[in-house]
């Protein structure tokens, strides 16, 4: 019976501990709190880790170099979601009220968590920065006041991918009669581009073939059999985590030409192609404007972060695509806070003030150069009606060792995307009984 007594004691201890954990700890009074929802474990960890390290390192650099933002120190805390929506919601609830003014913004890096937080953010008045992911229609700031899919949505991505295909074929008129498959992660993330691709296929007359892959996507034999039978001219890849490398490997196995595959920007990083080995050579992917490599900002990162041993990143992560994306994510967030401080004063900002800052974020080419991000992103200007800020993208190709930019800049065609955004945003507003804001009345 000794063990049983131990069990009872354990149960009692755990319940006592729960109460203890529930009480909040003290925080610095003049600090800006930024939360980090990360996944360093689970099926998506190979992609989640470099991004999380980039986010953390940029903030560590700002704290060491400038003492934070305009003298307001940044306190940063991570919470592990494992890419699971319910854990993501728990993390959000845990972190949203930390610091003197609460969380500045959230970047969940998961479409599922983004969807769940989209419901909660307006009530808590905390903005969501979903850089290159999330709901495509959330760029409509009149309905989605708190969502900011900065740098690009999946509908922009779908349009740019088709533009690139047209360019390779030699013109939009050549798209007629072609067959383009979409190999997608069977989740809201993967399904998002379908609406735009259906419109594009009607407009340009190509045949659109959607092929779902069940999550996490490590098993794709039957999908590639289908591709072999149907022989599409191009395959668009909309995967994440292990699904990407599995797709590239499988394409090598069935000998589908890798240079006829175009991945979305979440399928175009080193962890997606390195596991495929030589089979990955020739594979192309969209860029969320930036590729791998080191921009001038790395000089400061080296001086204040890496050499001080403050970074968790492994040497081969530094300068990688997703690590760079993490840096950009933190840069956009902190610049938005800086914009908000210009209006509200140099003190910790509330979520509401940060939201104003993101909505009025205007990064000129000059400012981007000043920040050391030259060549990584183009200028962007967010507004009340356009929460995306910019619709620029390029394409890069994996040569077996590194990514090489192979295209010029494309701009998403708003004559196609905007009507779609308006229609689905209006439907969302009707379902949720939201009255859209009048942007002409915003300052």
């Amino acid at each position, binding site marked *: 019976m000794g*063990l*049983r007594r*131990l*069990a*009872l004691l*354990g*149960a009692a201890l*755990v319940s006592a*501990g*729960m109460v203890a*954990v*529930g009480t*909040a700890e003290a925080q610095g009074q003049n600090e800006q709190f930024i939360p980090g929802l*990360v996944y*360093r*474990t689970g099926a998506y*960890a190979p992609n989640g*880790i470099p991004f*999380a390290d980039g986010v953390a390192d940029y903030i560590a650099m700002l704290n060491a170099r400038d003492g934070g933002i305009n003298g307001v120190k940044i306190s940063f805390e*991570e*919470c*592990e979601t*494992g890419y699971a*929506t*319910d854990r993501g*919601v*728990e993390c959000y*609830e*845990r972190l949203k*009220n930390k610091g003197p003014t609460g969380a500045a913004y959230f970047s969940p890096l998961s*479409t*599922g968590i983004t*969807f*769940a937080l*989209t*419901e*909660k953010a307006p*009530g808590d008045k905390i903005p969501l920065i979903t850089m290159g992911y999330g*709901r*495509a*229609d959330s760029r409509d700031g009149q309905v989605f006041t708190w969502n900011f899919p900065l740098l690009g949505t999946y509908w922009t991505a779908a349009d740019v991918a088709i533009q690139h295909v047209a360019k390779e074929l030699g013109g939009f008129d050549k798209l007629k009669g072609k067959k383009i498959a979409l190999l997608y992660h*069977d*989740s*809201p*993330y993967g*399904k*998002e581009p*379908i*609406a735009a691709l259906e419109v594009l296929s009607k407009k340009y007359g190509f045949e659109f073939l959607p092929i*779902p892959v069940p*999550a996490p996507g490590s098993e794709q034999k039957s999908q590639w059999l289908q591709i072999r039978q149907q022989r599409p001219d191009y395959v668009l890849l909309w995967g994440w985590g292990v699904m990407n490398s599995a797709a590239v490997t499988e394409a090598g196995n069935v000998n589908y030409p890798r240079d006829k595959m175009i991945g979305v920007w979440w399928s175009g990083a080193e962890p997606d192609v390195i596991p495929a080995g030589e089979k990955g050579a020739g594979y192309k992917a969209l860029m969320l404007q930036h590729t791998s490599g080191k921009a001038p900002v790395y000089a400061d990162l080296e001086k204040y972060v890496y050499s001080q041993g403050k970074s*968790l990143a492994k040497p081969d992560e530094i300068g990688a695509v997703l690590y760079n994306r993490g840096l950009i994510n933190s840069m956009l967030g902190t610049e938005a806070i800086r914009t908000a401080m210009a209006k509200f004063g140099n003190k910790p900002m509330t979520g509401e003030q940060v939201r104003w800052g993101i909505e009025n974020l205007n990064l000129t080419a000059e400012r981007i150069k000043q920040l050391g991000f030259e060549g990584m992103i183009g200028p962007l200007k967010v507004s009340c009606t356009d929460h995306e800020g910019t619709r620029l993208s390029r394409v890069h190709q994996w040569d077996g060792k590194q990514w090489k930019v192979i295209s010029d800049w494309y701009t998403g065609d708003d004559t196609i995307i905007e009507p779609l955004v308006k229609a*689905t945003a209006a439907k*969302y507003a009707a*379902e*949720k*009984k939201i009255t859209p804001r009048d942007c002409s009345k915003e300052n």
Partner: protein
Amino acid sequence: MIYREAGQYKVSYEADQAIFPIAQDRFLILTLLAVAFFVVPFIATEYLYRAVLIPTVILALAAIGLNVLMGYCGQVSLGSGAFMAVGAYAAYNLSIRLPFLNPFVCILLGGFFAAAVGVVFGAPSLRIKGFYLACATLAAQFFIDWVFLRVKYFTNYAPSGSVNAPPLQMFGYDLSSPVANYMVALGFTVVLALAVKNIVRGHIGRQWMAIRDMDIAAEIIGVRPMYAKLSAFAVSSFLIGVAGGLWAFIYLGSWEPAAFSIDRSFQLMFMVIIGGLGSILGSFLGAAFIILLPIFLNQALPPIGGLVAWKISTATVSHFEAMAFGALIVFFLVVEPHGLARLWSIAKEKLRLWPFPH
């Protein structure tokens, strides 16, 4: 000494048949309910509501539902996630297509849809048993997952396949605050738990238990297996469906079929097994154990590491969490195979003898 029913004479059939015949039990339950309804709202923080109380209360309801099927009727089911999904999507579709209906009415009606689907998928239980039935319900899980992923009508043609709950209101009051959410979820769970407690004490529950203990003997003494098994499937799926509606509308707000995947089915099954098969109390204990322990481990490890000056990274914490969680489940099952509910009844027996154990 404290927990002793000596001197409590029952002088009427009503008193003898009460849900809690012992005065101390009655008192304890009433105190618990009073604390849950009147004290918690004054002390709980928003985090406690959203991350701990609301999910525990809702999944406890789902665990009760599964317990009806597994614990009382002895039918193994791996399709509970799917029945939650049916409840959630039925409630969503009702609220979209019949906008005059209150969202909470939609949740209740969603439970009836889940019950109907549960009866259909429960029909094979008349012929197949044990592990084979588990396979059949697993088929339900995959089929229903597939339906909500593929049939666009059910998701109202949303481009991403993800749907949103309608605003939660009742009689013009906004019920989207965490306190209101908690009260609603608790209300549903308490009322339905009491109803189930009564059902399992009555002739229906006795039929279920007869089937569970030995189905051939039950049939010989006049229990109709078809009626007993299908009624268990219906009641169980109804409860799970209502829980699914609550989970979607109150906890998630926006969801996709992945929220009700096979993982959810296993999670509910673990709750029932760890809490105690055939016990309503066990369902609550199991839900609390499965939801709270990972969160507790996740938050307690960094301070504990801090005591020995070890800075634990986010990844290490999460690996530790998985390891400790698994080890604790095995430990509890080895020590007490009948679940946490059995620990509680042992504690009651000890209390009865205390302070003079023999």
